[in-house]
C-alpha cells in the first residue's frame, strides 16, 4: 500500500487556507468546547428518550394516555429525573463517588492518550485493548510471580506493563512502516490475538491460581500494588495517568520527536520530502502509544483488580477510542474526556442500583456523544447558534490506502 507512494508521490493536498485569525468570533477551543457541550446535552436527550421508553410507570400511564395525558408526561419526567439524579449523585455526590469516578477514569485517560498520540501521527489506533491486555499480562506476572522489596517491585511491574504494551503497539508500527499494512486492520486483529493469548495463559500453570479452575491468577503481591488513597479504590495510578498526560503534552509540543510525529500526522508526503523518516515516526508513535495503553493495563491489574483475569480489560480499550475522539487528540482534552467518561461509568453503576436503569444506557450516552462530536455539522443543524468550527474533521478523512 504505502510502497506505492514512494515511487509515485500522491497528489499534494490543496494548500491549506492561511490560518486567519477568527474575526470577532470565539477562539477555537471555545467553539470546540461548545460543540462538545451541545453533544453531551443532545446525548442526554437521546438517553432520556430511552429511559422513558423503558420505564414501567410510563408504560402504565401510556395505557390511559387519552384520559390523562399529563400522567404520562409527569411519569416520564420523574423517570428521567430520578435516573439522571442517581447518575449525577453516583458520579459527583461526595468524596467516595468522586474517588470512584477518578478510579474509573484512570485507565481511560491512559488508554485515551494511547489513541490520541497515534491520532496526532495520523494513525488510528484501535488496538488499545490488545496493548492494554498484553501490558496487564506482563505487569500482572511480574506482580504475582516475582517477590521483591517494596517500591522496586511496583516500579518493575509497571515497567513490565509498559514494555508489554510497547511490544504489542510496536508490532503495528513496524508492520505499517515496513510493509504498509494498515494499522486499523492489524490492531483489530491483534486485539483478538491478545485476548486469546490471555485466556490461554490463564490456563497454564505459570498463571493459574493454585486450586482454582476458573481463569484467575494469584493476587498481586502487596509490594507491587499501587498504594490507595484512604479507604477508597482510588490509587496512585491516577497520578501516573496525569503525569502520562503531561509527558504526552511535552512529547508532542516541546520535543523534536513530537514535532516530527505531528508533521507526519499532518502530511506524511511533505514530511518525507522534508527529510523526515515517516516509517520511524509511525514506529515511535505506536511504541509510545502501546506503552501508554500498557500503563493502563498495569493500573488495572496492580491498582484496581489485583488478580489477573480474562476480564481485565473490560471495554477500556474501546472506550479509550471514544475518549480520544471526544478529547480531539489533545492531552488536556483526553484527560477531561477521560474524567467525564469515568464519571459516567461510576454514576451509571449507581443509577443501575437505585433506579434499575441498566448500565448499558451509559454506553449509549458515550456513543451518541462521540457521534455528535465527530459530526459537528449535525450538531450545528440542531443547535443553530453555534459558530462554525475550523479545520477539524478533515484531518483524518482517509481510507485504507492512506
Amino acid at each position: 500500500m504505502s510502497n506505492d507512494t514512494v515511487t509515485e508521490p500522491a497528489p499534494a493536498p490543496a494548500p491549506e487556507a492561511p490560518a486567519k485569525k477568527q474575526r470577532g468570533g470565539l477562539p477555537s477551543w471555545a467553539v470546540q468546547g461548545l460543540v462538545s457541550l451541545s453533544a453531551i446535552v443532545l446525548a442526554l436527550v437521546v438517553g432520556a428518550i430511552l429511559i422513558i421508553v423503558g420505564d414501567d410507570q410510563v408504560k402504565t400511564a401510556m395505557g390511559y394516555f387519552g384520559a390523562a395525558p399529563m400522567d404520562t408526561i409527569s411519569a416520564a419526567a420523574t423517570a428521567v429525573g430520578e435516573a439522571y439524579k442517581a447518575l449525577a449523585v453516583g458520579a459527583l455526590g461526595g468524596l467516595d463517588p468522586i474517588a470512584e469516578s477518578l478510579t474509573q477514569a484512570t485507565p481511560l485517560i491512559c488508554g485515551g492518550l494511547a489513541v490520541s498520540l497515534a491520532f496526532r501521527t495520523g494513525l488510528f489506533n484501535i488496538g488499545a485493548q490488545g496493548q492494554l491486555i498484553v501490558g496487564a499480562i506482563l505487569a500482572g506476572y511480574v506482580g504475582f510471580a516475582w517477590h521483591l522489596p517494596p517500591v522496586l517491585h511496583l516500579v518493575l511491574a509497571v515497567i513490565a506493563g509498559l514494555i508489554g504494551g510497547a511490544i504489542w503497539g510496536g508490532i503495528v508500527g513496524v508492520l505499517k512502516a515496513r510493509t504498509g499494512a494498515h494499522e486499523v486492520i492489524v490492531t483489530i486483529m491483534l486485539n483478538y490475538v491478545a485476548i486469546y493469548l490471555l485466556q490461554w495463559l490463564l490456563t497454564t500453570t505459570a498463571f493459574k491460581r493454585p486450586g482454582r479452575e476458573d481463569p484467575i491468577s494469584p493476587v498481586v503481591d502487596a509490594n507491587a500494588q499501587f498504594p490507595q488513597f484512604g479507604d477508597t479504590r482510588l490509587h496512585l495510578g491516577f497520578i501516573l495517568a496525569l503525569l502520562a498526560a503531561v509527558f504526552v503534552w511535552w512529547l508532542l509540543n516541546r520535543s523534536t520527536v513530537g514535532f516530527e510525529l505531528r508533521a507526519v500526522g499532518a502530511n506524511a508526503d511533505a514530511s518525507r520530502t522534508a527529510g523526515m523518516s515517516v516509517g520511524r515516526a509511525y514506529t515511535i508513535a505506536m511504541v509510545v502509544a502501546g506503552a501508554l495503553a500498557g500503563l493502563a493495563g498495569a493500573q488495572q491489574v496492580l491498582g484496581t483488580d489485583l488478580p489477573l483475569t480474562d476480564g481485565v480489560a473490560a471495554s477500556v480499550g474501546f472506550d479509550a477510542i471514544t475518549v480520544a475522539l471526544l478529547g480531539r487528540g489533545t492531552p488536556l482534552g483526553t484527560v477531561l474526556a477521560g474524567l467525564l467518561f469515568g464519571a459516567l461509568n461510576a454514576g451509571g453503576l449507581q443509577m443501575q442500583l437505585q433506579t434499575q436503569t441498566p448500565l448499558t444506557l451509559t454506553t449509549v450516552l458515550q456513543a451518541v456523544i462521540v457521534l455528535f462530536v465527530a459530526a459537528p455539522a449535525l450538531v450545528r443543524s440542531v443547535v443553530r447558534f453555534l459558530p462554525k468550527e475550523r479545520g477539524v474533521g478533515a484531518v483524518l478523512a482517509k481510507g485504507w490506502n492512506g
Partner: protein
Amino acid sequence: MSETTTTPDTVRVPAPATIEAPADRIRRLRIGGVMLVFALIGLGLAIFTKSGQATFQLVSGDLQNNLLGVPAQGTALLLGILGLVAAVAYVLRRVPQRYSGWLAAVLGICFIGAFLCWAAAGKTFPLANQFQGTLNFATPLILGALAGVLCERAGVINIAIEGQFLVGAFTAAVVASTTDSAAAALVAAALTGVAMAWLLAVFSIKYLVNQVVLGVVLVVFASGVTGYLFDQFLQEDASLNTPEVLSAVKIPGLGDIPFIGPILFQQTVLVYLTYIAVAVVTFMLFQTRWGLRVRAVGEHPKAADTVGIKVKRVRYSAVLWAGVLAGLGGAFFTVGFAGSFNKDMTAGNGFIALAALIMGRWHPIGAMVAALFFGFATQLQSQLQVIQTPIPGELLLMAPYLATVIAVAGLVGRVRAPKADGEPYVTE
C-alpha cells in the same frame, strides 16, 4: 504539480514469460518462504504422527458405518511431502504464473490434511461435523463480508458490520418470538440492518465523518442500544426472547448426494439465501451497469461524477443494500442458530467478517473463501477439544486473526483496497 510526476509512457514490449520484475521476484520469494515454512511444519507434524489408524467419520452421529480409516503416519507423510513439493515448485517457478495460486491451495489442503492425520491418529475425527460446523460459523461471516464488499467497493469503509449484526440478531429474535413467523423475522432483521446502514451512509456521505471513527462508534452504539433494550424488556419478559430456530429444509435431489448433500443441501433458508447472495452480489458487481457504477465511485468518484454518475446516490444504494445482507447475517445468530438473543452475542464476528473481506481482496468469492477458512478454524478448535489434542484451543482461535495480519502485511499476495475507499466525496 502532481500531474507531472507520472512516469513517461514507455512502449511496452511483451516480455518473454521467463522474465519477472524485481518486485515480483521479491514477492515470490517472500510468499515462497512462508509456504516453505508451512510445508516444513506440516512435514514435521507428519514425522511426529503416532502410528495407527486415523478414522474419519463421514456421517454425523454415525459411529458404526461410513467411517474412513487411513494409516495416520503414512498418509500424513504423503501429504507433507506433497505439500513440500508444491512449496518448492512455487519457489522455483516450476509452473506457469497463472497456475501458481493452485500450488498455494494444494499446500493449504495438504497442510490441513496432515494436521488432521496428526490430531486424529488412533482416534475418530468427526469429519462431517467439521464441515457442518464450518458452514454454520461461516454463514454470518459470508453475509457480513459481502455487506462489507458492497460498501467498500462503493468507497465507504464499513467497520460497523458488528453493529449491524447485533441489531439484526436482536430484531430477528424479538420479531420471531412475537409473530412466530420466520419470514417476518428475516425481513425485520434486514430492515434494521438497513437502518444501521442508513446511519453509516448519512454520517459518512452527508456529514463527512471519518468512516473508521464512525464505524467504531456505531458498533458501540448498537451494543449499547441492544444491551439496553435487552436489559429493560427481554430480561423482564422472557416471552419476547424465545424465537423458534429456523428448521432445515432438504433440497430434493441435491440433498441426497452422499457426504456433500447433508452438509450443503439440508440447511436453513438463511444458508440458501447466503449461497444466492454470493452469486447475486458477484453478478451485480461485475456484470451489471449498477455494479460498474459502484466500482467506479469507489475507485475514482471524480471521474464517475464527470461522466454523469450520481456519486452520492450510488454510494447510498450500495451501503443500504449492504445493510440488508448484514442484517440477515445478524439474524443467523438468533433465529438461524442459537435461538434467543444475548448481550453482545455476535462476539466480534463482525470484525472477523471485515478480516474475511480484506483477506478476500474485496471480492465476493474471495471473501466467501476467507469466511469459510475462518469458519473452518473456529469449528476445528471445538472439534479438537472433543478429541483432546495437546494444542490449546485458544491458539487455534488466534489463527484467523494472525492469518489476516500476515495477509495485510503483504506476505501473502497483493492486498489492495478500492482507491477511494473511505474518502468522502465533496463536489467542488
